[in-house]
């Protein structure tokens, strides 16, 4: 400490002593009371808050639980959605349209709804009219009687036409049903190899194919007869060529269908015969096959086909 400080230091002490002798101002009593009351109230609150804090610490787990519970449902929904998505992605191939298997009923319905039903043509009506109605103008009948007879004839013709149409429609519907069944059988055959089918299934398929071939052949025959009649009745009309073409197309389609059915039938028969060599095939069934298929079967089974 410097000389100046030493000289000053006693002055500082004196001033300090002088100042200390002055200190007597105090805050007012009212302020003292106010502050002490505030401190007391705050102290009580602090005590309560300490207890609350201890209580909160004790039950801290419940708070964490409530946080988890708040997110319980959203998390569970998200997990479910994820699970479904994973399953769907893994099984996506099963939901492809190509792999869908139609039941015979569904295929039948599809065929019925999609295929147009052909109505009897005008020429057909005329042919029937001329052939069956036998309308000839009587030489001596009055006009009223003639009209009455004409009406009766027309009624008969219409009834027959309706019956034929219905029959044709029914036949067509049956054809479509069998076509649908054929479709199902063919799809089943394609999807599952015939050799891997159980024997019962093979027999069932064979029976189904037999019925289908019979029905289709009947349709073909009916169509052929219609065509022949049309040829006879309408050979000189203008639209006969187009009408005949349509018929031919239909016949051609039926023949192709029969051929496919025969192929499928033959395959099923071969497969079944491999598992059951003692199987004796019904001749009627054999006759449904083509000639070369019959010969092949004869060679395979050494069974004579009775013509």
């Amino acid at each position: 400490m410097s000389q100046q400080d030493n000289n000053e230091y006693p002055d500082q002490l004196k001033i300090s002593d002088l100042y200390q002798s002055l200190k007597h101002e105090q805050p007012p009593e009212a302020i003292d009371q106010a502050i002490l009351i505030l401190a007391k109230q705050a102290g009580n609150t602090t005590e309560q808050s300490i207890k609350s804090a201890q209580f909160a610490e004790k039950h801290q787990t419940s708070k964490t639980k409530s946080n988890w519970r708040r997110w319980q449902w959203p998390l569970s929904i998200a997990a479910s959605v994820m699970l479904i998505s994973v399953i769907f992605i893994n099984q996506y191939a099963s939901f492809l349209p190509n792999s869908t298997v139609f039941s015979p009923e569904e295929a039948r319905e599809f065929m019925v709804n999609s295929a147009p039903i052909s109505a009897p043509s005008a020429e057909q009506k005329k042919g029937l009219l001329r052939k069956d109605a036998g309308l000839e103008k009587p030489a001596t009948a009055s006009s009223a009687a003639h009209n009455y007879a004409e009406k009766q004839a027309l009624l008969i013709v219409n009834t027959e036409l309706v019956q034929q149409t219905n029959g044709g429609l029914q036949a067509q519907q049956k054809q479509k049903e069998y076509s649908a069944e054929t479709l199902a059988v063919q799809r089943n055959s394609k999807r599952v190899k015939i050799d891997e089918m159980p024997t019962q299934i093979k027999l069932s398929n064979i029976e189904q194919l037999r019925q289908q071939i019979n029905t289709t052949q009947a349709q073909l025959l009916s169509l052929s007869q219609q065509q022949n009649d049309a040829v006879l009745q309408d050979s000189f009309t203008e639209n006969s060529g187009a009408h005949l073409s349509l018929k031919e197309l239909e016949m051609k389609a039926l023949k192709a269908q029969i051929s496919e059915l025969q192929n499928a039938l033959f395959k099923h028969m071969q497969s079944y015969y491999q598992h059951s060599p003692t199987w004796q095939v019904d001749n009627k069934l054999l006759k449904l096959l083509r000639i070369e298929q019959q010969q092949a079967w004869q060679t395979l089974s050494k069974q004579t086909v009775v013509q």
Partner: protein
Amino acid sequence: MQRYAQGDFRAFEELYQRHKGGLYRYFLRQLGEHGLAEDLFQEIWSKVISQAPSYQVKAKFTTWLYTLAQHKLIDHVRHIKVANKVINADKVEHDEDEKIPQNQGVNEKSPEHQLQQQHTAMILKHCIQALPLVQKDCFLLKEEAGLTVEVIAHVVGANYQACKSRLRYAYNNLRQCITHKMGRSSI
């Protein structure tokens, strides 16, 4: 303070009784008005009470208390104009009317001595009031709070040497002021 934080009210009462005078005079000397001093005084203790639960023993309670007070004072001074009360360190007011003749040889316990004492006190207060703010701050923290120079430096946010200088200047100014008003022999 920690005992008060635990809920012991008597601990606070003890603290309050110990420090209330010094803090009150600190504000009184700085502001020069009783009302204003009382307001700030009350605000500081409210803050002490509210911060009691979070109080941590990092320094002495006195240091913490006067740090709060000093910050509150600075905030207050920023909003009021005290330039007319701040005097340059080299300039000291002279009041001829306050001078008292020296060497009167009065008895210390006599009424005259008491009167002289009162007069001296009044002059000292006036001189303290006349000090620059930073010097007054350091002087009061030393005299009222009993803080050392190092702690004062921490409270006011200045370094040790600056605080020491401010204190030296404060005492010098007070000495000169008192000498001018009362004569050299008074100190």
